[in-house]
């Protein structure tokens, strides 16, 4: 139902404030990033693109940053790395998170709020601290480190290239993946749970009535119906993972260079703003497609609610 406001100005004010805010602080910055990515860096800040030289306007576009990115194998590999780890994290989160959400949704109705609360609780505590805790757990003598050595898993990990040396679990692809999966697991579980909890169980009863084995009904009915939840959860994990910085920084190592880290270094260490901007622009291009998928899902989900 459209709420009729007596004057157009009433409406405009309500939409206008957040709209203007977003245009100013979200959209405009992107254009600025674009602009700076083709500018020249000058000591502490960047040079203007347009300058007056002897009375006439001169436009200086420095596209060399983009060329550099395209040509330098390091950047290419880093982008690939980021996509790779984001994908691996998403798949692992899905494999662990889907059954988790499923069993949560099928638990007794009185138990479910407690289960949900227990998933939310870590989410509300600082993620930085929990990632830091993994440092301790995976360092020499840490609980998980000892456990893995105890069950001989370190040989398997060494063999598969996930760790570099026996017994050393920190600053490896393994520690990075554990950290990422750990942090993003709730982001996968929550939308999946929301979706699975709403599923009409009578559909499964109908399937059973028609002679379908429960296992088959799971694959043919439950999973397809939860498609929206799978997509939402995957997008909520995949997209931010690509540009993740904190976890690779604390738990990752030389093998696991990701693009978030590169951007950070270009900006803070090299003080090369145009370079950092170029890296950012390419990153945005990378996530445009999944971002569009996510936005489409969001509006679809809102339509369905109506």
């Amino acid at each position, binding site marked *: 139902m459209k709420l009729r406001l007596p004057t157009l100005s009433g409406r405009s004010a309500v939409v206008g404030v957040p709209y203007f*805010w977003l245009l100013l602080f979200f959209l405009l910055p992107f254009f*600025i990033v674009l602009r700076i990515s083709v500018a020249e860096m000058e000591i502490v800040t960047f040079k203007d693109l347009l300058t007056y030289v002897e009375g006439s306007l001169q436009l200086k576009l420095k596209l060399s940053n983009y060329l550099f990115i395209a040509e330098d194998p390091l950047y290419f590999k880093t982008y690939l790395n980021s996509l790779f780890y984001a994908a691996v994290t998403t798949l692992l989160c899905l494999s662990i998170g889907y059954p988790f959400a499923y069993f949560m949704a099928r638990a007794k109705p009185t138990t479910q709020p407690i289960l949900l609360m*227990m*998933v939310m609780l870590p989410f*509300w505590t600082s993620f930085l601290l929990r990632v830091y805790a993994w440092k301790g757990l995976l360092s020499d003598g840490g609980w998980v480190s000892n456990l893995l050595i105890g069950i001989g898993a370190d040989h398997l990990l060494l063999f598969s290239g996930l760790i570099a040396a026996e017994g050393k679990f920190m600053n490896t692809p393994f520690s990075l993946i554990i950290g990422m999966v750990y942090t993003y697991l709730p982001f996968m579980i929550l939308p999946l749970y929301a979706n699975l909890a709403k599923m009409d169980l009578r559909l499964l009863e109908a399937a059973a009535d028609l002679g379908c084995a429960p296992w088959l009904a799971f694959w043919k009915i439950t999973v397809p119906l939860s498609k929206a939840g799978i997509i939402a959860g995957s997008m909520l994990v995949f997209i931010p993972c690509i540009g993740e910085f904190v976890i690779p920084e604390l738990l990752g190592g030389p093998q696991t260079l990701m693009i978030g880290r590169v951007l950070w270094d270009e900006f803070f260490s090299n003080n090369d703003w145009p370079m950092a901007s170029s890296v*950012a622009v390419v*990153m945005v291009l990378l996530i445009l497609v999944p*971002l569009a998928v*996510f936005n489409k899902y969001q509006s679809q989900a809102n339509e369905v609610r109506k």
Partner: protein
Amino acid sequence: MNATGAFPKLFGKGWLAAGYLFLYLPIIALIVYSFNDSPLPTKWGGFTTKWYATLANDREMIAGLWLSLKIAFFTACGSVVLGTLAAFSLVKFGRFKGRTLFSGMVNAPLVMPEVIIGLSLLLMLVSMQRWLGFPERGALTIWLGHLLLGLAYATVVIQARLQDMNPSLEEAASDLGAKPLQVFMLIILPLISQSLMSAWLLTFTLSLDDVVLSAFLSGPGSTTMPLVIFSRARLGMSPSINAVATVIIAVVSVGVIAASYWIAHNERKRSREMAEAARA
């Protein structure tokens, strides 16, 4: 449900237990080691509370905490206000011009990597500073960044509640003589108040915990607590971090459990009353 259970119950319970163990392992470790009397983080040296004493004297950390709390407070307030406006527009104004762009901009910060948001916002603020002379990088700029993120989260929460609300309620209020602003203040606002509270708490937590945006947008003298922790964590292990962590965990746990219990209690009371009314 047994007839339709695709998996044995034990398997389900086992999976959940393992999952929760995974989720809570770091939290337990933090708490345990905050009482560890040993300079080495992984060797147990006996029980002590000295790290808490160190924490109390840790000026840098306490200053950071104080700053973070202030910024978080204003982030939460701003996010709820902006989020309500945005959610209202998206739910009640139908297909207005520019709606797709608006909806895209509101949703994007939810998934966009923070390094991108941080970098772009910073560059814009620097440009603004060049052109207009302000703002200086510091608490204000951090607040702006957190607000952007908070707006996205708050809108999602509030929008969900607004859509579930019976539209006839607003029509009834209007029919009885309430002007649009009165409809909002007297009917809509009270009914979405719980989601406003959730949005406030959510954005407060988000702001309190944020590292990347704060790093990009901070200035001299505006080091937030996560930044303090982060710079120390990069260098190595620091036991006082465990102490801080335990304090935060304790506060959050009490809060979440209390809130959950209170909500559940109200739900039960309501169901009871409805059942009684139906019998009467």
